[in-house]
């Protein structure tokens, strides 16, 4: 296929394109694509549409594929205090923000400092440090939770803080999970910034810290944004640690709350789906808005980490 044909074909719709090149492979590709799209999108459609159903629609003998109207019964149960089984989901949303925003902010600050050292400065033990941080990243969370739990319990009794139901403790454990990959992604990015720019600033009399603040960081904003979003998403979605460290309903983050509603003796799938929709929507929107940065970050961090 010559380049002209390729340019032309890019301007056609999928259908046109396939009609022109209706050979065996084009046909298989079209079918597969449709199959993929349905398989991916249907669960999301089902989540959102189920959240707008009434209890009668959700509990009927046959599934209702299109809700009769956009009923807000499920959302009322989540947010309306006058609802008989009011869930106070707003508090859970706030809790989730309380852990994910600090995680993202602190992770970006610490990882920036560390990544700069790794990318620009020479020091003994750098390779060892980097490799151990990466290997640590592969440690399973379930392995760490037992010692972490008893360790923090000991520390808590000595220093006078509670391990359970403490969102601050949760932030620390999330930092341990996100810092290695954040460090790696940022270090990779810093390496792509030409060091001549920094050297010029150093010769002009800036100190290293000033160089970081005035030269490197402004140039690294895309990477900082993607690391912030990435760590935010990890903290936002995290289940296991929150599941173990949080006991009080008032402090539940969204994933734990959704799990609780799901396991309620009287099943109310529409409420579970409404809560899931609320939790998923910001992530999808964030992701679509910043897709370019994020996919690059994923591949850059993933190949080596």
């Amino acid at each position, binding site marked *: 296929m010559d380049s002209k044909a390729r340019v032309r074909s890019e*301007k056609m719709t999928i259908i046109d394109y396939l009609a022109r090149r209706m050979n065996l492979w084009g046909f298989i590709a079209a079918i597969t694509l449709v199959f993929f799209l349905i398989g991916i999108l249907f*669960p999301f459609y089902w989540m959102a549409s189920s959240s707008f159903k009434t209890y009668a629609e959700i509990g009927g*003998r046959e599934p209702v594929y299109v809700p009769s109207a956009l009923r807000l019964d499920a959302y009322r149960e989540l947010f309306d205090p006058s609802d008989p089984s009011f869930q106070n989901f707003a508090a859970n949303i706030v809790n989730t923000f309380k852990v994910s925003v600090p995680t993202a902010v602190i992770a970006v600050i610490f990882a920036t400092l560390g990544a700069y050292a790794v990318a620009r400065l020479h020091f003994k033990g750098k390779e060892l440090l980097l490799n151990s941080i990466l290997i640590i990243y*592969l440690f399973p969370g379930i392995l760490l939770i037992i010692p*972490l739990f008893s360790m923090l319990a000991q520390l808590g009794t000595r220093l006078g803080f509670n391990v359970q139901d403490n969102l601050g403790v949760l932030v620390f454990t999330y930092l341990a999970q996100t810092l290695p990959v954040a460090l790696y992604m940022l270090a990779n990015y810093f390496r792509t910034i030409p060091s001549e720019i920094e050297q010029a600033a150093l010769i002009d009399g800036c100190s290293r810290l000033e160089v970081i603040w005035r030269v490197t960081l402004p140039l690294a904003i895309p990477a900082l944004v993607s690391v912030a979003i990435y760590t935010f*998403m990890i903290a936002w979605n995290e289940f296991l640690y929150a599941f173990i460290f949080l006991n009080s309903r008032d402090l539940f983050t969204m994933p734990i709350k959704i799990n609780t509603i799901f396991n309620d003796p009287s099943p109310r799938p529409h409420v579970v789906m409404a809560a899931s929709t609320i939790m998923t929507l910001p992530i999808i929107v964030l992701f679509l808005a910043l897709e370019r940065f994020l996919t690059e970050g994923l591949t850059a961090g993933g190949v080596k980490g």
Partner: protein
Amino acid sequence: MAVVHKTSQSPRHNRWSSLEAQEARLAWFLIFPTALIVFGLVLFPAVFSVWISFRDVGLKNLNDVFHAPFVGLDNYRTVVNDFAFKYQGPQSWGAAVTSVVYSFASTVLTVVVGLIAALLLNRPFKGRGVVRATFLFPYVAPIVSVAFVWRWILDPRPSGVLNDILMRLGLIDLPKAYLATRGLSLLLVIIFEAWRYFPFAMLMILARLQALDTTLYEAAEVDGANTLEKFWYVTLPELRYIIGSIFLLRLMWTFNKFDDIWLLTGGGYGTNVLPVLTYQFSFGSFSFGKGAANAMILLVILVVFLAAYVGIVMRGTDEA
């Protein structure tokens, strides 16, 4: 003598105050917070869990862990002989065998689906950017949401979507409890893993595909290769290393995964894996020593994967 002494001293002095040394100190200062958190909250606990696995730690002495009685290999012995862990014939695989089967099958399926998706998106068509973004949805969406949607789709009642569709098509007569049927539930959990994680494999493979040298294909075309042959003799060999690294990364991550199976089946109906069993020992029966022993067994298997990863793939990717 004094002169000699002075010259032997000054390089040392220089090393401390030289630019190089200043840089090194700054570097350690900058990396200290990250290193402290990562080592304190990951490395130390990891070592500590080895210690716990040899002790009898329960709820009663959790606050006094350092004086927990030493029990030797008892925890390991109990775990290995536990009916939930041990392989007891094809009807009851136990967590160890299930874990390995589940991780390998999910990873193979994830990579295959990711490869197909990558090939699909490698050809230009209008709307490719949107389609690519859509393909990433399962990977970025919160695990809790997608796991519960799947459970809702696989609902055992006739109102479950899959039951409804299969009954309408006449493929089944009675509704099935998909996630509560041995064998079927494991298969569905594997399919779920591929559904959720194929975008990761897809992104990696796509990045590699787009960097491929097109002259290779032109040469193959001159030699008269058809599409299938081009894929087999040109594309696949070029993707070998990236597929190898994705495979091992995903294998380790899947092996470690707790959330997915816990949320989908709770570890029941032949889907109990080592991470879930670790949870059940530690936070179900509050026997932290056994939980730690189980986690250590998990880690040993993981280290084998890791060794393979470092030995085969990391060395290989330098060339690729």
